[in-house]
């Protein structure tokens, strides 16, 4: 563990904004909320925040991106496209780091999705331990209030200085630039960091009443409780907001966009959501998840069970974005999971 003064860190960020070829992204306040956005100056950084509107997923899987460019002037020509902007992203909370780790597995699974992977490889992740929590978050219960890896550098606020944990050579390379101002942490400082990490785990208002490891079997057991799913999905708008803000939702649609000449254009993928009505509809009109309750259940099953079966991770990191953004307020995973847990023996 290293220690740097806050003003040194800010100086480093300004230096990177000024001279580094990479785009520097940081958490900033926007209206009364927080967002990941391009940093103009280090002083715009807000590292003491509750949660951002969108997770940093948007930098690796943009809302819209080109996969293929085509041209038909002299026969059909198609080229793969990946618009990679190398980036340094500053201020990622532990639950979002965990989500990125999970997405890395999804997109590295065969066949590899290089559109995602190349963007990831060209990014540096600077995490920050939480000092405050969102009202909707339950990261403490999901084991994602802190992480041991998944970052290149990890900051912990110690008043006038940051404790810095180094997660990779990409991270240590950054620190090289200010090596004269970096010192080893003292045993007391290390203790403080560990204490801060321990304390944040109890700061969450929302809680899961049981270990998340029990989710896969709980959800298997409650899959066919149709009344429960129907009752809870009753007010769902099928708007897909919970999908859009989720750091582990990665389903996508693919569409072609033609140039006005009709002789060239792009094939793009864009975010899609399993809560949207047409998500499982085929051209002939058959909809394989036609009912709101089926789609609603599908989302919870996917978070707590399906992706676990496939990749070994509980695909809910407890950020609370889904519930915080849900207009009819029916998307709180702790509410749903706890109700299922309490009702399982009935």
């Amino acid at each position, binding site marked *: 563990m290293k220690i740097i003064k806050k003003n040194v860190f800010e100086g480093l960020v300004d230096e990177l904004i000024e001279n580094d070829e990479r785009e520097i992204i940081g958490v900033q306040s926007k209206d009364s909320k927080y967002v990941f956005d391009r940093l103009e100056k280090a002083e715009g950084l807000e590292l003491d925040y509750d949660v951002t509107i969108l997770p940093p997923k948007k930098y690796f899987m943009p809302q819209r991106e080109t*996969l*293929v460019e*085509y041209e*038909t002037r002299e*026969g*059909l*020509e*198609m*080229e*793969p*496209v*990946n618009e990679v902007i190398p980036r340094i992203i500053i201020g990622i909370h532990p639950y979002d780091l965990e989500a990125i780790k999970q997405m890395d597995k*999804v*997109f590295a*699974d065969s*066949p*590899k*999705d*290089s*559109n995602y992977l*190349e963007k990831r490889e060209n990014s540096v992740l600077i995490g920050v331990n939480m000092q405050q929590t969102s009202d909707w978050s339950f990261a403490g219960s999901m084991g994602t209030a802190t992480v041991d890896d998944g970052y290149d550098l990890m900051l912990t606020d110690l008043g006038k200085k940051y404790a810095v944990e180094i997660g990779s050579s990409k991270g240590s390379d950054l620190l090289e630039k200010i090596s004269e101002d970096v010192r080893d942490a003292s045993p007391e400082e290390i203790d403080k960091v560990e204490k801060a990490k321990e304390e944040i785990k109890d700061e969450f208002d929302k809680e899961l009443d049981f270990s998340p490891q029990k989710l896969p079997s709980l959800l*298997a057991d409650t*899959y*066919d409780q149709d009344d429960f799913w129907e009752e809870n999905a009753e007010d769902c708008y099928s708007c897909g907001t919970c999908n859009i803000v989720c750091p582990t939702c*990665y*389903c*996508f*649609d*693919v*569409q*072609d966009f*033609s140039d006005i000449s*009709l002789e060239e*254009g792009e*094939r793009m*993928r864009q975010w*899609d959501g*399993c809560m949207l009505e047409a*998500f*499982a*509809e*085929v*051209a*002939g009109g*058959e909809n*394989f*998840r036609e009912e709101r309750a*089926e789609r609603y259940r*599908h989302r919870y*099953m*996917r978070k707590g069970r*399906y992706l676990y*079966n*496939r990749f070994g991770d509980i695909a809910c990191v407890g950020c609370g974005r889904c519930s915080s953004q849900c207009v009819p307020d029916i998307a709180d995973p702790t509410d749903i999971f706890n109700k299922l847990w309490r009702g399982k023996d009935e």
Partner: protein
Amino acid sequence: MNEEDSPYLPESATILNVKKMAENEKLFEIELDSGEALNHDPGQFVEVSVPGVGEVPISISSSPTKEGNSFELCIREVGNVTGVIHTLEKGDEIGIRGPYGEGFPVDELKGHDVIFIAGGLGIAPLRSLINYTLDRREEFEDVKILYGCKKPCELLYEDEVEEWREMDEIDYRETVDECPDDVCWEGNVGVITTLIPGVDIDLDNSYTVVCGPPIMYRFVLQELKEKKVPDERIYLSLERRMKCGVGKCGHCQINGKEGEFYVCQDGPVFNYDVVKDFEEAL
């Protein structure tokens, strides 16, 4: 970005021939511009691209035993992309990705009776396996084909069906849901399930392969159950919305209490015993 790095980049291919088969269905013979064979298994599918319009998953309708390197797709005009595909002609270029998915377990079927039950467009994926068994007839025991469609004019692969009717080495039966008075039809009239009771099924030695619209499965499977056909001796090919074909986009996932499958990777061909308890499968 290297071409081999993108699972989303189609290969260019050329339409060698287009044949109208029914009011809404055409058969397209296609060859990859690389000149290479598609190297597919019966039951697999490809993603067909019309640049500027989009991509659709289409099951491969020809057998890999077919001569030459071309392959065939039977495409129903039903949406935007298939609508444009239907305007394409010999010599036009399209994009192809694949073949994708798990096809029929040909090796498991060898040495057994094979009973095909096709409803409507369900004949398209089954034809890849039907032609495979006909081309390697000696590797299979009895072959029975039950084919049903709504009206006689919707019958697909008419020339081949005509041959099947005459063939001694297979048992071919057909039905239409209804037949207009002014149309000559010598086959059965009634839904596809009405053909099943009359078929002898050697329960210990046969496999039944079913493909048709979602509504058909329920009734056909019920009929097969009455015949005491073991669930594990039934194979189905399922249709789902697909956007990527490679297990990423999430659209084709089918779920149930038991777990989940991606139709594009784990299917489209499934053993009935494996998916029967999946609420969303059938």
